[in-house]
């Protein structure tokens, strides 16, 4: 082992130019892999974040539309306690209502939120002009609704419930969730406000959650569902965003394809160059065999060469890939100075790429290793 390793090192050192060439070849492969991987991952995270980052990812509601969740604060507490990977849990009491303004009326969704926890999901406080509602009868309206209906901060608006209940509410702030549809239709208030307005008593219509890892939604939702079989239904964003998911999948698969083909070309490159080194070193292999080196040991020399080239290439490639990624985020910018695509640097993925390159290089070395194992010393001795 040790001898084969030493010989491999010497062979690599004696053909320095060739060694550097192969290592750089592997490095470029690895760096492209890391760059594309980070780019696609960054793109996906950005996409997921902008699509479902500010909404409920798992929602518990009652099976029948009419029915409510009566022990909601117990449930919120239980889920907060039991599932560490759920970041925010918030109960809501929602209902449809009409906003009546002079001659016009607007159909809205009046949402009663627990602002302490709901803020984690909707990040309202970042997008709020004015103050969050505190006491009963205070509401927030969306930016689009404010402009459309010509309401100002501090105005009183009239809301009508489906049962004909009519109540005056005071607008304490204007929010902008970035989605005009929601800005137009949502009116936000506190839980007690909507509970009394809709006559829900101390009950909620749904419990909303946001997770550490959005891709765990499916399993977590299933867990919660099985723990609360009965009249509750648990929905997750994946069920509701099938087209987004298939888009993400397509992206991921194409990224894998690129990475696999990059690695195949690296593999072929290494294999062919190493195959040439066997011919270059056949004299040495022949003399070593005349001196009694075993075929396996002779093969090991080339395996070690592949391994070392792989390691050198992987290290170089990781540095190059990170450099490339850094340059991309530093120089490919939007007009506002943010990167066009924020890259996601995942150490696990980088380690995997490096390990993959090392494995591939070692596998590529099998071809020359086999060749050197078959080399008959007499051919070298006889032909000088």
């Amino acid at each position, binding site marked *: 082992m040790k001898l084969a390793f030493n*010989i491999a090192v010497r062979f690599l050192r004696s053909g320095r130019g060739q060694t550097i060439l192969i290592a750089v070849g592997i490095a470029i492969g690895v760096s492209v892999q890391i760059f594309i991987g980070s780019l696609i991952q960054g793109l996906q995270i950005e996409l997921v974040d902008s699509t479902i980052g500010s909404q409920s990812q798992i929602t518990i509601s009652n099976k029948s539309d009419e029915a409510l969740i009566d022990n909601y604060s117990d449930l919120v507490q239980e889920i907060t306690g039991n599932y560490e990977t759920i970041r925010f849990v918030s109960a809501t009491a929602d209902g449809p209502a009409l906003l009546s303004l002079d001659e016009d009326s607007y159909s809205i969704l009046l949402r009663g939120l627990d602002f302490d926890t709901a803020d984690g999901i909707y990040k309202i406080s970042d997008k709020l002009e004015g103050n969050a509602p505190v006491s009963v009868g205070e509401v927030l309206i969306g930016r689009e609704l404010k402009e459309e209906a010509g309401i100002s901060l501090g105005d009183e608006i009239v809301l009508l419930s489906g049962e004909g209940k009519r109540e005056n509410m005071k607008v304490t702030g204007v929010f902008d969730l970035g989605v005009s549809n929601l800005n137009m239709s949502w009116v936000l208030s506190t839980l007690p406000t909507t509970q009394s307005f809709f006559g829900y008593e101390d009950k909620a219509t749904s419990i909303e959650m946001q997770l550490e890892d959005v891709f765990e939604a499916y399993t977590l939702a299933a867990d919660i569902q099985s723990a609360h079989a009965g009249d509750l239904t648990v929905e997750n964003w994946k069920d509701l965003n099938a087209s987004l998911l298939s888009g993400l999948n397509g992206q991921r698969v194409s990224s894998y394809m690129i990475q696999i083909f990059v690695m195949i070309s690296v593999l072929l490159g290494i294999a062919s160059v190493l195959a040439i080194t066997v011919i270059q070193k056949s004299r040495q292999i022949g003399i070593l065999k005349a001196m009694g080196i075993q075929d396996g040991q002779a093969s090991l020399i080339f395996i070690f060469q592949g391994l070392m080239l792989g390691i050198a290439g992987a290290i170089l490639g990781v540095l190059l890939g990170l450099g490339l990624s850094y340059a991309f985020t530093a120089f490919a910018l939007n007009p506002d100075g943010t990167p066009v695509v924020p890259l996601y640097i995942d150490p696990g993925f980088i380690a995997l790429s490096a390990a993959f390159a090392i494995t591939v290089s070692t596998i590529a070395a099998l071809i020359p290793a086999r060749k050197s194992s078959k080399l008959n010393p*007499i051919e070298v001795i006889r032909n000088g």
Partner: protein
Amino acid sequence: MANVIELKKINKIYGSGQYQTHVLHDVDLDIKAGSFTSIIGQSGSGKSTLLNIVGTLDQPTNGEVWINGNRTDQMNKKELAILRNRTLGFIFQFHYLLPEFTAFENVLMPYRIEHGGAPKSAVERANEIMNLVGLEKVKNNPSGKMSGGQQQRTAIARALMNEPKIILADEPTGNLDTDTTEIIYNLMREINQTIGTTFVVITHDRRIAEKADRIIEIADGRIVMDV
């Protein structure tokens, strides 16, 4: 004295059909332990093939090869490699050192092939051999950067490293000048006499051959003279 090499009815045929070349014809040869034998003959006479068969690098088409009491023509590659490593030392015309290593490392190589590493005792032994062949001053030179005579002495030192019973040399001085040739032969002779290593040396130089204990001449694949 016992025979360390015994060849029985060795035939070697290259190729097949109408392009067949019969290189060796029923060669019988015994070589005694501790002897110094030279083999002479025209080029193409089959002397190198004979030496390569003795060295287990080549296989006879038929016949028996006994090296140090072991029949080698039926051994597998692995057994042959071990036999070569422990029992045989080679010196070739073109010295065949590994240019990636220093002279000293080349000398250690047969030991490392057998044992992997090189403990102090092996390093000491390699040093002794380097002194014996008069290379102590240049032992750490890259082997490719030495003179022909130095390279050949390195090859001899390497052949001695594992204390083989037999050293096989194929025109070891073929590309060296007369003075260096003299030095190399005297060195081999000295090793033969002091350590008792058996030498079989191919040469085309009759003057050198005559210094051997025994001269074998080969012509057209047959032993034509044995004195």
